[in-house]
C-alpha cells in the first residue's frame, strides 16, 4: 500500500471533471489539476475570494471530495470497525467527523459520517488518495454480503456555500435553522439535496450535495444571487487561517491522532476499530511531538517542507504556511517536540536558506464571533 501524491500541479488532460466544470471554464477561472481533478485555483483573485467569504457569501466546488454510500444489514458494525467513533454516538440529525486509521494508528484520512436512514450511511472524505482508501474499505468489507459499498462521487455534486451571510439567503431559508454539523434532506431552488451545516473556512455555511445533473442550475441560482465563486487558493488560505488541517500536508499516515491534536475524534471507550490497539499503546507511552501554530515575526512566508529551528537546531518541519489575508500576518503550522509547544516560544523557520524569526501562537489564528 503506498500513498500517491495529493499535490496540485499544472493542468493535465486526463484530469476528471466535476459537474460544475463548464461553469469554471465559462467564468475563465485559472484551472489546475488537484488530486486528479480539473479545478479552479481562482477565478479573478484568491485574496478577493478569501475576503468575500469572510464578509459575505462565497461558493466552492468541492465535488472532488469522495462520497461513498454504505448500505446493508451489517453496515453499522462495519463502519464502527473502520472509523474512530462508533455510529451509535452520532448525534441525531447530525454528521460525525472521525478518522480512518491504519493498524499502526497512522491517519489515512479524516471524514464525515452521515446516517441517511436505517442501515444507510454516507461517508465524505478527502479527494487525496481516493483509490487507496476505497480499496482499503473494500478489502475490509470483502466477503461480507451485509455491506454494500457504492462510490457516488461522480454521480453527485458537492457545493460549499460559506460566509456570514449564507444563512440569510432566501434560497437557503429551509436550512437556516440547522444546528452546526446538522444535516437534512430538503429542496434548494427546487432541487432535491442533502445539506449539512459544515465547512472548511472558519465561517458559518453549508455543504450541499445532490444529483450531478442538477449541479449547474444550482450554481447559476447562487451566482445570480451574488454568491462569489471561490477557488482552491481561497479555500486553502481560509482553512489555514481558521487553524484547520489539510490531509496530506498537516497529517498523513506517519502522523497519529494525538500529535495532530485530533484525540477528540477518537473514541477509545467504544467498540474495536482498526488502529485502536496501537492508539492505546501510543496513549500510554505518550507523544513526542505536537502540531503547533506559529506567526512570523520577521518578513517571510513559511511553506510546507520548510525546516523549523529552535536555538539554531533542527526541531521540526512546517506542514502548512502562508499569508493570513484577514489578519495581515504570515502564519503556519508544523510539528515540534512536545517540550517546546508553549505559546510564545520563539522559533526560526528556514526560508530559502535563511532563518526567519517566528513565534508559537494559538492555532485558531482567526476566530469568527459570528460562528454558529
Amino acid at each position, binding site marked *: 500500500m503506498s500513498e500517491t501524491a495529493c499535490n496540485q500541479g499544472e493542468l493535465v488532460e486526463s484530469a476528471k471533471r466535476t459537474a460544475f466544470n463548464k461553469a469554471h471554464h465559462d467564468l475563465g477561472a485559472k484551472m489546475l489539476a488537484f488530486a486528479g481533478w480539473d479545478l479552479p485555483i481562482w477565478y479573478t483573485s484568491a*485574496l478577493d475570494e478569501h475576503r468575500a467569504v469572510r464578509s459575505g457569501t462565497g461558493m466552492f466546488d468541492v465535488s472532488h471530495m469522495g462520497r461513498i454510500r454504505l448500505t446493508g444489514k451489517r453496515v453499522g458494525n462495519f463502519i464502527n470497525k473502520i472509523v474512530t467513533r462508533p455510529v451509535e454516538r452520532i448525534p441525531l440529525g447530525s454528521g460525525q467527523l472521525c478518522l480512518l486509521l491504519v493498524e499502526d494508528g497512522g491517519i489515512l484520512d479524516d471524514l464525515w459520517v452521515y446516517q441517511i436512514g436505517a442501515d444507510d450511511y454516507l461517508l465524505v472524505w478527502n479527494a487525496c488518495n481516493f483509490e487507496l482508501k476505497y480499496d482499503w474499505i473494500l478489502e475490509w468489507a470483502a466477503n461480507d454480503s451485509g455491506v454494500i459499498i457504492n462510490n457516488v462521487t461522480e454521480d453527485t455534486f458537492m457545493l460549499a456555500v460559506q460566509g456570514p451571510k449564507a444563512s440569510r439567503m432566501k434560497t437557503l431559508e429551509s436550512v437556516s435553522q440547522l444546528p452546526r454539523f446538522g444535516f437534512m434532506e430538503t429542496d434548494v431552488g427546487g432541487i432535491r439535496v442533502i445539506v449539512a451545516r459544515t465547512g472548511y473556512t472558519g465561517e458559518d455555511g453549508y455543504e450541499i450535495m445532490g444529483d450531478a445533473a442538477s449541479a449547474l442550475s444550482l450554481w447559476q441560482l447562487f451566482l445570480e444571487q451574488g454568491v462569489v465563486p471561490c477557488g482552491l487558493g481561497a479555500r486553502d488560505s481560509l482553512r489555514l487561517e481558521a487553524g484547520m488541517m489539510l490531509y496530506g500536508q498537516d497529517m498523513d499516515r506517519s502522523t497519529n491522532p494525538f500529535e495532530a491534536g485530533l484525540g477528540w475524534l477518537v473514541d477509545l471507550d467504544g467498540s474495536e476499530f482498526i488502529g485502536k490497539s496501537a492508539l492505546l499503546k501510543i496513549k500510554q507511552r505518550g507523544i513526542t511531538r505536537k502540531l503547533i501554530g506559529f506567526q512570523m515575526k520577521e*518578513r517571510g512566508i513559511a511553506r510546507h517542507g520548510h525546516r523549523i529551528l529552535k536555538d539554531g537546531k533542527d526541531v521540526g518541519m512546517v506542514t502548512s504556511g*502562508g499569508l493570513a489575508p484577514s489578519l495581515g500576518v504570515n502564519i503556519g503550522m508544523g510539528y515540534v517536540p512536545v517540550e517546546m509547544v508553549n505559546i510564545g516560544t520563539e522559533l526560526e523557520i528556514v526560508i*530559502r536558506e535563511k532563518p526567519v524569526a517566528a513565534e508559537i501562537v494559538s492555532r485558531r489564528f482567526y476566530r469568527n464571533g459570528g460562528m454558529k
Partner: protein
Amino acid sequence: MNPKEYKYTKDNEWIFFESDGVGRIGITDYAQAHLGDVVFLELGSVGTEVSQFGKIGEIESVKAVSDLFTPVSGTVTEINQKAVDKPSLVNTDPYGDGWLVKLEISNPTELDALMSSDEYEQLTSH
C-alpha cells in the same frame, strides 16, 4: 497592453529607461496574471551589483515563489518600498506603481538582447 516604450525579457520582466542611465524594472501584466495575487517581495538591497539575466529578487504569490531576473547589468539604486509594503501593486499596476527596482545601467548595448513590446506580445499570445 504592454507599453511600447518598454523592453521585455522572455522571463516576463520589463525595463524602462528613465533618464541618466537609470532603468526601472518590473514584471509584465502577463506574469502577474499567471502568478496570481502577489503577497511577498524580496528585492535585495541598494548598492548590489547585478549582471544581465541574473537573479535580483523573489516574488511570492498565493500559488508559488518565482525568481526575479534583471534584464540588464548594473547597480541597484532604488527599491520600490511601496510595493514591498503593498505587494498587490504588482497585480493592479505592473507597469506603473508596481515597479520593483531601479538600476544604474552599466552596459547599454545589452538592450539589444531584449524584446520590443510587439515581439513580447507574440511570445505570450499563445
